[in-house]
């Protein structure tokens, strides 16, 4: 058991201004295992990885790789020692080609100049290993977030020798892609590699990992063998109180009225959304289900005016609109939490307070400035209401963990007092505890009269929250279910049927 220890971290501590992110944490990784690192948002998982790989310097503690003391001062050094990492945030260059991204910093050379042919061939071979067939000469930005993530993983897999770290790599992948990734991980594990895997999907933990280390509030809770730890004790250990799976399956009482907040009639955009007609009533939660690329987010973008519709009518309250833009949408009482929190949600350099008041200020207009006092009042109110974990509202938002960032974005919209809130993957990449909180919040908001349109890849989540689920498939509305008919099986059936042939999610460009 100790003979094959690959990596050992002992008594590691790290403090950020105002936050003790890690205190005296031990962590052991063995050869040929997949080791889950679990904990709520802000528990310190990413920080543990970042001190290991030299992104941050640790205050205290030692790291041994194959029994030898190491101190990586930068990710490059860690890389040279054989530790490669895919960070939570994708760190690639969108305007370089896929091949360039795979070989950046280590391009194959021939007689002093770049050997493009070999680089492209090697890239293709490398991606084949992950069952990916891409045109490696295309710029990375032509591909979906999921594919970009797979490219990052391919690069790390290729460069790693011994230790591979994956910090929430699956949050933007669909089921099929997750399985692809798991196949690769199993292969690498069997070759003797040690893999650290951070995820918030419990099923994935039981699917792929051999061992689990749990952190809570920066401290070690314990290390367990996956097969011997039940789901409920795993979650209880993470959140620090009793948790039963049944708690998650509360059935929702209906609270909506007959008044319609938003409706669309054959809203269409060529190449992106085929005619969709649906309505959301006051206090109603409507779910949009479908596979990745089925047109769910694209539809949300039409309502909020990120994209323009070609035809069809959008009605908000009693007004109808031919065209829309975000500012107008906000003025008309729409709020929108976009899918990609980092790219389209947070404004990284700004503080929590500024991020919260941003949309409200935009709604009021540039000259109708919200005085600082009032801003602080609003920020304080929502930090308390949503239980945002931060030492101060003047912290930069990018110092927060994912779940807390998401709460700030929610706060941003609640501050505008919307009548319709569109939530695109509101709990993606968020831990179980915060997930539960956000779901409860959605239900409470609906009860108080807010209309909600929710998109989630976790069907169970939508079933719990929604009064009604509209199913999209291949950019087309294929059906609708409500009440007791809302089960995962029924939804999957509807997604699968509808058009006959079982098309696969296409992976060529976007």
């Amino acid at each position: 058991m100790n003979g094959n220890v690959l990596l050992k971290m002992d008594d590691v501590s790290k403090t950020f201004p105002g936050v003790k992110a890690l205190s005296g944490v031990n962590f052991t990784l063995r050869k040929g295992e997949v080791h889950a690192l679990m904990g709520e948002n802000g528990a310190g998982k990413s920080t543990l990885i970042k001190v290991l790989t030299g992104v941050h310097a640790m205050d205290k503690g030692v790291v041994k790789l194959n029994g030898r003391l190491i101190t990586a001062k930068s990710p490059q050094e860690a890389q040279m020692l054989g530790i490669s990492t895919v960070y939570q945030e994708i760190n690639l260059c969108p305007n370089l080609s896929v091949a360039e991204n795979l070989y950046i910093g280590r391009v194959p050379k021939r007689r002093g100049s770049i050997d493009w042919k070999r680089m492209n061939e090697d890239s293709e071979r490398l991606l084949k290993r992950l069952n990916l067939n891409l045109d490696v000469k295309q710029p990375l930005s032509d591909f979906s977030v999921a594919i970009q993530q797979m490219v990052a993983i391919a690069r790390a897999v290729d460069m790693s020798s011994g230790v591979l770290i994956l910090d929430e790599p699956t949050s933007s992948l669909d089921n099929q892609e997750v399985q692809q990734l798991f196949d690769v991980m199993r292969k690498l594990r069997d070759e003797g590699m040690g893999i650290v895997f951070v995820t918030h999907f419990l099923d994935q933990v039981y699917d792929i990992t051999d061992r689990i280390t749990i952190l809570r509030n920066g401290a070690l809770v314990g290390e367990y063998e996956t097969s011997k730890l039940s789901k409920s004790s795993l979650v209880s250990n993470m959140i620090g109180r009793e948790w039963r799976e049944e708690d998650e399956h509360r059935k929702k009482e209906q609270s909506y009225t007959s008044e319609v907040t938003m409706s669309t009639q054959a809203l269409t955009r060529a190449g992106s959304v085929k005619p969709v007609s649906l309505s959301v009533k006051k206090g109603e939660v409507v779910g949009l289900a479908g596979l990745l690329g089925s047109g769910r987010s694209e539809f949300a973008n039409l309502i909020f005016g990120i994209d323009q519709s070609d035809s069809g009518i959008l009605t908000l309250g009693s007004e109808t609109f031919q065209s829309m833009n975000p500012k107008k949408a906000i003025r008309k009482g729409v709020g929108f939490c976009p899918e990609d929190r980092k790219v389209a949600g947070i404004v990284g350099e700004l503080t929590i307070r500024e991020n919260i008041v941003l949309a409200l200020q935009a709604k009021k207009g540039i000259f109708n400035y919200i005085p600082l006092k009032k801003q602080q009042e609003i920020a304080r109110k929502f930090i308390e209401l949503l239980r945002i974990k931060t030492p101060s509202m003047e912290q930069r938002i990018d110092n927060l963990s994912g779940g807390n960032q998401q709460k700030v974005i929610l706060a941003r919209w609640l501050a505008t007092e919307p009548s319709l809130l569109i939530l695109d993957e509101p709990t993606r990449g968020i831990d179980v505890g915060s997930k539960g909180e956000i779901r409860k919040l959605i239900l409470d908001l609906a009860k108080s009269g807010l209309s909600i349109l929710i998109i989630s890849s976790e069907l169970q989540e939508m079933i719990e929250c929604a009064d009604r689920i509209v199913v999209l498939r291949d950019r087309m509305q294929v059906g609708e279910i409500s009440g007791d008919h809302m089960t995962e099986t029924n939804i999957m059936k509807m997604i699968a049927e509808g058009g006959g042939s079982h098309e696969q999610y296409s992976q060529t460009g976007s």
Partner: protein
Amino acid sequence: MSSIRKRAASIMHTKIIWPITALAAILLFNLFFVPGFFNIEIKNGHLFGSLIDILNRAAPIMVIAIGMTLVIAKEGIDISVGSVLAIAGAVAISLLGVVPLWLAIVAALIVGVLCGLWNGLLIAYLGIQPMVGTLILMTVGRGIAQLITEGKVLTTDDKAFGFIGKGFFLGLPFSIFIAAFVFLFVLYLKKRTALGLFLEATGTNKISSEYAGVEPRKIYLFVYIVCGLCAAIAGLLVSSNISSADANNAGLWIELDAILAVVIGGTSMRGGRFFLAGTVIGALFIQSLTTTIYSMGVPPERIMVVKAIVVIVVSLMQSDRFRRVFQQKNKQAVAG
């Protein structure tokens, strides 16, 4: 005790400490090596001396750098400010005597706004890269100024116009009051309207800002217009100071001084947070440096080199990464 240390640490983290240090250093240098640098005389109720001279000469740089700060905060740049300065000067002086003074001034300012509008439209609405977009006006602008002056160096002896860049008010150069007014006005926009928030938000993350209802293009257009207006004000200061409009040489390379002032002041070329007070001090530093080098009698051909070295050092100090490397080295040295 620890609170003092914390406060000290937070001061070290505020960006303004670096331009202030740089300015203090150059003044200290002058105290020891340039005799009479700090002498201030009173002649006819006006103050005279090197320091006053620096203030007066720094005014145009300051005004332009303030406009430039906004443009850089949105992750842009405006290299046409020197040309706009020349155009505005040419417009004002060629109109003097033809129309009333106030109209000549207003016309020059309007031309500045139009120049900014042009830049803004190219960049915000046609999506041309800022460097390329403003390069157009930078090159064409001098030609336009030439057309206005009909290829000559126009001069004026209008006393009232001369007051703008040469006059004294309450014992101090009038130009410095104009610079102060521009500073306060833009500071007001930043602190008392949502411009500061919107500009810092779009400069940091354009997409997120758009999703939050901010209209980045309008913000961009606005900051280029303000920058053009600032360049026109500087054009009035400069042409009034030398009582002439020189299409070729007025404001030549001033964009470089302005950009440096912004960067030294702590605003990052990557956009986002911006620091108006930092910019003002940065501009004062650059003018002090120039004046010092002149008064040391450094041969003109070496002036650029000396300036370059000093600027490199200050910019390095301003870089977080450089400081971190430097601090780590220090720590190691202490530990080892």
